[in-house]
């Protein structure tokens, strides 16, 4: 399965987190917000001019900068999504 980072996936399609490739406090924080392996994630939209991303992870919506989103690896969710 191809791995895509969260900043590069198509908007509006269901993906799931595979790993957070970032050590330190920011990585810890992302995991605490629910970016754990298998968690459903979706890119909702990108702010214009290289601005932040709006993403849905599990049941809530978050905005984060593209550079930070690059640390979050995802994989396409199985079409018949049975997560959770």
């Amino acid at each position: 399965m191809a791995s895509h980072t969260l900043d590069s996936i198509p908007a509006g399609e269901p993906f799931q987190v595979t790993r957070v490739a970032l050590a330190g406090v920011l990585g810890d924080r992302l995991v605490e917000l629910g970016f754990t392996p298998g968690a459903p994630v979706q890119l909702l939209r990108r702010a214009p001019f290289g601005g932040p991303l709006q993403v849905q992870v599990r049941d809530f919506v978050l905005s984060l900068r593209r550079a930070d989103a690059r640390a979050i690896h995802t994989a396409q969710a199985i079409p018949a999504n049975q997560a959770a």
Partner: protein
Amino acid sequence: MSATPEARSRPLEVALAGNPNTGKTTLFNALTGARAHVGNYPGITVERRVGTHEAHGVAWRVTDLPGCYSLSAHSPEEEIAHHALTGRTSDPVPDVVVVVVDAANLARNMLLLLQIAEIGRPVLVALNMMDAARREGIDIDVPALQRELGCLVVPMVAARGEGIEALNEAVAQVAANPALGQIAETVWPEPVVAAVAKARFVLGQFALNRPPESAGGVLWWLATDPEIADVEVPGLGAALLAAVPRPADPALDPRRLATVVRFARIDAILSRCVQRRIVTTSGRSERVDRVLLHPAFGAMLFILAMAGLFQAVFAGAQPAVDIVETAMGALSDLARTWLPDNLLRDVLIDGVLAGVSGTLVFLPQILMLFLGISLLEDSGYLARTAYLVDQLMARIGLPGKAFVPLLSAYACAVPAIMATRTMPDRRDRLLTIMVAPLMSCSARLPVYTLVTAAVFAHQAPVLGIFSLGGLVVTAMYALGFLLAIASAFVLRRTAIKGGGAPLLLEMPPYRWPRWRNVVRSLGDRAWVFITQTGTVIVALTVVLWALMTFPREGLDAGIKATRTAQAHALAGEPAQQTALAAIARDDAQVKLQNSIAGRIGRTIEPTIAPLGFDWRIGIGLVGSFAAREVLVPIMGQVFGRGSQADIDDRYAADVGKSMASAGALTPLKGLSLMVFFAIAMQCLSTLATIRRETNSWRWPVFAVVYLNSLAWLASFAVYQIGTRMGFA
């Protein structure tokens, strides 16, 4: 039901914990009504809300802990929440912790629940916003959730008061039987167990004067910032780091592994208790976002919303400001006629009352701004504004959340600095506070008017259409803005190193604002400003009054007597009155020139002469510390125009012309004065606010030093280069 029958010697300690945006504060307000107190935790600016409540004859003391996503001490809020839960603040350890959970967003909310249960506090779950969950098609089997967790779960809609009675009951049950508030410990995988054992050993060596920590408590130490651990016990952070190093692959880090395992447990529990009737992810809020965050349409709406907010603060508050000023003016006139003419009267009126008035005039703008902010925040749009401008703000080195505070600083720095409270990162916030006074506030306008009316009004229009005065004022706005960007750049690399926190901003679902919450937060804000900032403003105003009053050496007694006699000899009542008024004005002028402030003005003359200012303007620089616009009446007094409380454009222009005809103001000197006022930190109310918001005198003093040095350098450059180029 089993409310404790024994009489308690102290109230039941109940803490409300939870993620931000879970309705925790709404629940707190519903429980405590008007019996709440807002303050700060000592030493930091995290707000501390405590109130009382009574249920089944038992008095509660309710603490609203700061909202946080986790207990890992990456932010002051998390640190405080943890310290409050473990009895490390001045408050007693809570008997019962009510974890407020958003029913529509269970998984992320439950991480905090598990962490609190792990450190051993009796918990129960307030499953709030059940209505929103139902709307989103989420069915929660509450009895099953209660079984799975092992603690009580109370479904609620706190905003409508639903579930409060059941919550009262549940808290009483847990208070009577703390075992009801336990959650079975998570089964940790080997790397976590090993790390906990190592950390426990280190903690033992440091002989913390506390009972041995639960595995969850030890995990907290592991996830703690080493600096924070060191604050509590010197050397502990480093020792823990040495015992449990961070592995190269973050996925193998025991701290992170613990979070992943908690989420796995949460997912397993929820899979047995929660059904989703609607599988689509595009909820109501997403549909609204499609419009409000639309690349073109959303940007327009944003500009409109911000323009509205600014207009409300800048102009909307003006009628109320006028009322406050008129009322306070009438009050001091009244006091002047009623009280005997002595020094005590003067200090009361020109010191204390002026200070009180100087505090109250800020209230309309503060209330207006915070009305706007709480409506934006409560509705969910404030977080979106940060998303929209983050990239733009990043270019000037500040986060998106600095936008609203900096925008409002164009009206007034005082509410703007208070508004930085919405910024989560301490350093970003400090940086925003330090550059906010550079935004050209409305108090500078009378000074700009004074100068432009006197020396730029009769100049030929630039390119035939632009009035020179208008261009110069516009340039002042630009100057402040550009210097703010430059200062942010420099400060970020010097005095306020670090910061630049990542943008990880929850976009809460759109909601109608709750008027009760809005009104309540406005009341709290006003109260804190009056009691805490106001006292500093009054004290500083009295000091300033003393500087401008003593030693009270007016006209020479002989001269005064001669002139008074001459005045009385004049024919006709009106002529006599005019002559007497002139004597009083001259007397006031001499008194001010001889005052301590006047002497300071003379003393600093050598330092301000290179800027084109003489000692008379020096007096103004001292006196305008009360508020920038006060420069106008002080100059009026110094230059023999008399002072006037109502600083309208005509008076400002007249004073400016008097200064010009006395040679104190030329186009070049005027420009230098405007540049100085555009940059300098000369507002004691702003200083009092910085002091209150940063909890130390260090930052207000720093602001005075850096901004006034900058102002001096800029005016120096303007005047010296201008003179060399042959301008006058």
